[in-house]
């Protein structure tokens, strides 16, 4: 047997082939399919009717209403209603109605496991690759075909390896790693997949690992995977999933050939920001110190997990958001809001002057509360800063870690968070 990568093993298993190689076009059986209120039922319904069919296996379909939530006008209310009706009529296995963002909810319910082949109707579906599954995003017609037939074709991707080694310095997060990689690897990596490994990854909790796989979308990769370890299995078990130790065998073989290898020295990394209008415009936050901001936004699948809110609270403890700046916080799920509330994290954020928003994709998808006017500047924990994405075409969005966003909210301008984090404060 030749040494094989984790990605190739999953695709071979899903396509029923003994082995696959880069460039092969193969048909894969889908273990789990999911979508949200914008990409799912409202687009699938007419296509399934045209095909004269329903869901191939409702128990393998998950729907989360996370884009048009809560409804702000009659049109968004109609989309949410259509979604609920579809779920009932088609007996969809799992439905999360305004409970948070789909990408956050799948692992929060133990639904993602190593070795699975998963298809999602959203470009950040790759978020869950941290659990050792092959999970990619697809458009609505592809997803309609997938939920109708249970399978899809893929090009077997070339597989790259990114090694992240070294202890993470205080104030540096996996978000900073990904912004840095957007600069180093660019965003043009289609028909390739990436596996992350190294001592930095081994030390990360799942919330931080999911940032790595989430932002493989910004690198343009088809998917990003991390081989499972004890932390992965523990997370699945703690969230209601069954996880046998045998799942640990889903990993790349010793000596497996990767198309490209890239190494990042995490110990030497400083907090990063990405300037408007591309994640690839990343550079050290300290080089942007002093850029005035109107809004600081903490939200999205990538940047409003419990760990992210804890980071924000750590910076805000005993401090105030600067005058003239608004800090908006949209936790990625209602469960996270509840837990943050129990820990006192929410109280710290609110006491500092933050505003709590509903859980969902919110302003990051250009749909929810917190959009920007022409000429306004926002620093955001989200993953994309394309022109016009968060409101007016003439607004500017900088991407950063939760630490950097919170420090900037306090300073009223972009600020490397390490000063505030190490500063001694009076009791």
């Amino acid at each position: 047997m030749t040494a094989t990568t984790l990605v190739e093993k999953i695709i071979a298993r899903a396509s029923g082939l003994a082995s696959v190689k880069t460039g092969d076009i193969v048909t894969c059986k889908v273990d789990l399919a999911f979508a949200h209120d914008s990409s799912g039922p409202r687009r699938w319904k007419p296509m399934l009717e045209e095909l004269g069919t329903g869901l191939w296996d409702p128990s393998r379909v998950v729907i989360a209403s996370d884009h048009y939530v809560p409804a702000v006008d009659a049109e968004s209310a109609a989309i949410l209603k259509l979604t609920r009706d579809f779920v009932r009529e088609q007996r969809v296995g799992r439905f999360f109605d305004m409970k948070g963002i789909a990408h956050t909810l799948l692992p929060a319910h133990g639904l993602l496991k190593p070795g699975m082949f998963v298809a999602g109707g959203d470009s950040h579906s790759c978020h869950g690759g941290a659990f050792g599954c092959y999970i990619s995003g697809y458009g609505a017609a592809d997803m309609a075909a997938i939920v109708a037939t249970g399978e899809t074709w893929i090009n077997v991707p070339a597989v790259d390896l990114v090694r992240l080694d070294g202890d993470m310095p205080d104030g540096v997060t996996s978000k900073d790693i990904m912004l840095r990689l957007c600069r180093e690897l660019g965003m043009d990596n289609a028909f390739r997949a990436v596996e992350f490994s190294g001592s930095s990854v081994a030390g990360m909790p799942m919330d931080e690992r999911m940032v790595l796989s989430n932002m493989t979308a910004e690198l343009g990769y088809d998917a990003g995977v991390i081989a499972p370890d004890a932390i992965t299995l523990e997370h699945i078990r703690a969230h209601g999933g069954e996880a046998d130790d045998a799942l640990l065998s889903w990993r790349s073989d010793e000596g497996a050939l990767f198309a490209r290898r890239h190494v990042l020295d995490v110990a030497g990394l400083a907090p990063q920001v990405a300037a408007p209008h591309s994640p690839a415009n990343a550079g050290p936050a300290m080089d942007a110190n002093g850029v005035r901001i109107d809004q600081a936004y903490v939200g999205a699948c990538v940047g409003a997990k419990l760990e992210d809110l804890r980071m924000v609270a750590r910076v805000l403890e005993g401090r105030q958001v600067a005058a003239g700046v608004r800090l908006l916080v949209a936790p990625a799920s209602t469960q996270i809001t509840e837990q943050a509330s129990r820990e006192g994290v929410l109280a710290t954020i609110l006491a500092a002057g933050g505003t709590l928003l509903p859980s969902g994709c919110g302003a990051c998808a250009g749909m929810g509360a917190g959009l920007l006017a022409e000429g306004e500047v926002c620093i955001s924990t989200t993953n994309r800063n394309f022109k016009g994405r968060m409101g007016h075409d003439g607004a500017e969005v900088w991407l950063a870690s939760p630490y950097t966003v919170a420090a900037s909210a306090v300073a009223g301008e972009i600020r490397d968070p390490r000063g505030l984090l190490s500063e001694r404060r009076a009791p």
Partner: protein
Amino acid sequence: MNEPGRVWRLGDRIDTDVLAPGSLMKLDARTLATHCLKSVRPDFAAQVRPGDVIVADEAFGIGSSREQAAISLKVLGVRAVLARSFARIFFRNAFNQGLPAIICPAAVTARDGDRVSLDLAAGRAFNHSSGEAYEFAPIPEHLMRIVSAGGLMPYLKRTLERG
């Protein structure tokens, strides 16, 4: 080779928010298409004619999975997008709508307004304005079948009916 269409020459990383703005996703396809590329080419949606082609640089269609990015171009009558490279989801979405996404680095020498015709099966484009021929890898057979059927849904309907 078909009738030549005019070239709309765009740059790197034309993203899905530029093709179909997120804040307008509640609009119907025809209305949404009138906003296509507005923030980088304000004249595009009003001036584009059926049969025109887009020539772009790297990672065309990067960003969201929203199929409306490809649908908007299709609604406006764009015949094909030729680019140095594509984002994977856009690439699939385009073929699924019957819009060929052609990886053709040679075409980036084309200029705005040039007249270009295509032969998908032969993997060849011809620029009538400059006299240049552009070669590209022929579209894979499984994608050609989808395009010929007019998109994934008509293709799948036919396949399912045949059992």
